[in-house]
């Protein structure tokens, strides 16, 4: 048994090296023919060949590990159809993990796989959020907060965190998102949504919310995390009026 354990462990390591080879081919495709990349890829080849040979030998042998495990699965109470279905799922996911690409429902589970080198960032982060007044009080529509079961204030439980993620990040620059949110908030008795800027200063640890509608327009750019938010036309018009009035005052 100890020998078989060692063999399986060696297979696992070589299998990882094989997957790494495929990932490296994809990851370094821009610089594939540089010396360092070619050397890195070449190091993998003996391991891949050894693994292929080992698996071939094991399949040919009557007391091979793969055959023994296949018999064990067959002897379990698992129905034959289930074995076939699980094999298909296993193969689908194996391909997906090997090439690092999902094809629903096969998935390589690669969320947060991107790597970013550490760097000192600006100490202030801005986040544009919708806000409204109700009973003369300022309320910020913290969309992500509404997706958390215990933190939600305005939306019901069916507006799940998936909805708030989509509305708050993927689709925040779309008019349709704003219209959808306005419709929901109208049911809550909210007539007008404005865009304001929430900021966190990581140095002073202070969080502030700026209701200045013109500042929100001015700072709403593509550098913001997931891009700019949709700002309604009436906010732009009102801001424009402020500017015209201010200019007239100044000229007087």
């Amino acid at each position: 048994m100890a020998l078989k354990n060692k063999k399986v462990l060696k297979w696992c390591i070589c299998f990882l090296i094989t997957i790494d080879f495929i990932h490296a081919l994809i990851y370094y495709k821009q610089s594939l023919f540089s010396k360092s990349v070619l050397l890195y890829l070449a190091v993998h080849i003996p391991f891949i060949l050894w693994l292929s040979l080992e698996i071939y030998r094991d399949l040919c042998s009557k007391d091979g590990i793969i055959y023994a495990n296949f018999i064990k699965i067959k002897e379990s109470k698992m129905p034959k159809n289930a074995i076939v279905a699980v094999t298909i799922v296993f193969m689908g996911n194996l391909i997906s993990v090997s090439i690092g690409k999902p094809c629903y429902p096969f998935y390589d589970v690669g969320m947060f796989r991107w790597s970013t080198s550490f760097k000192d960032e600006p100490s202030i982060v801005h986040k544009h959020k919708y806000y409204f007044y109700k009973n003369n009080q300022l309320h910020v529509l913290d969309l992500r907060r509404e997706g958390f079961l215990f933190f939600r204030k305005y939306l019901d439980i069916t507006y799940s965190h998936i909805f708030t993620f989509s509305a708050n990040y993927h689709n925040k620059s779309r008019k349709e998102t704003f219209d959808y949110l306005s419709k929901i908030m109208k049911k809550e008795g909210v007539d007008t949504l404005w865009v304001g800027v929430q900021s966190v200063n990581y140095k002073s640890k202070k969080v502030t919310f700026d209701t200045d509608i013109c500042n929100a327009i001015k700072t709403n750019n593509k550098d913001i995390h997931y891009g700019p938010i949709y700002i309604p036309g009436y906010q732009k018009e009102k801001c424009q009026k402020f500017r015209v009035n201010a200019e007239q005052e100044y000229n007087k």
Partner: protein
Amino acid sequence: MLNKNIINRLSLPGSAYQLAVIRILFGIQILFSSSSKIFDFLKNVPGTDYTLTIFPNFIQNYINIYAIDVIQISVQILSIFLILGLFLRWVTPLLFISFILQFSFLYSKFDAPIPWLYIWFPLLIFIYSDTGAVWSVDSILKKTKKSLTSSKYRWPIELLSGWWAYIYFAAGLAKVLPFPKALQWIDGGTSQKIIYDRYLDSGFHFIFGEPFFDYSQYNVIFSILTIGSLLIEISVIMIFFTNKFNLILLVLILCMHSFLFLTGVPGFGFLGLILGLSLINPSYFHQYIKHS
């Protein structure tokens, strides 16, 4: 160590109660997920457009434009049947198909594996397993006496635990492959970026009101978090070789999810817990339920 590997464990005694609990919890989760307003919302906005599904474009378009309403209602009704354990023989394959179709709509417009990744494989396993032996209308109607510790309740549980392990191990692998990238990944820059960018949308902000330290500067905590999550994810591969560490791994993963919940990634914790119930030894389950 390999004496208790996942293939050997397929033939060990199981617990009909464990399978029933998982069936009911998945039923509730599916009902909740399929009723989310995200489906209504994504009919109005285009969402992300770069994800791939196994369906050819014309089928995916047909689902997205014409069939989604009917499919959504079907999933909701079938999930209620799954919770009740009624007509499971027909409900499980129908629910599997309709679930796959409904969430193909979601994935084609929303690039994240929530919540379908945790659910679709268990649903496939439910088709072939006896999930309604107890706590189901079917079992009340049939009134046949069964052994509730047969290995026919064990193999589905072991496959579910394998799926759980696959999800986290693959997540770990994706971060470290190719290996030179891992060196960059473990310096903590990615953790810093997530916490830094999403602070104002996170549980940390909603609960504590202010950041704990200056997230814009280097801090060794980011590296510790990154290496810790990586070690936890990679170590779940042990589940395939032994079930000795199942509970420790489950607790570690749930701790990781609790932290992610606070950083503004709330989606996976509860799903990880439901699927993670398959990591509990069936004998504990059986004894506890019998005694209570």
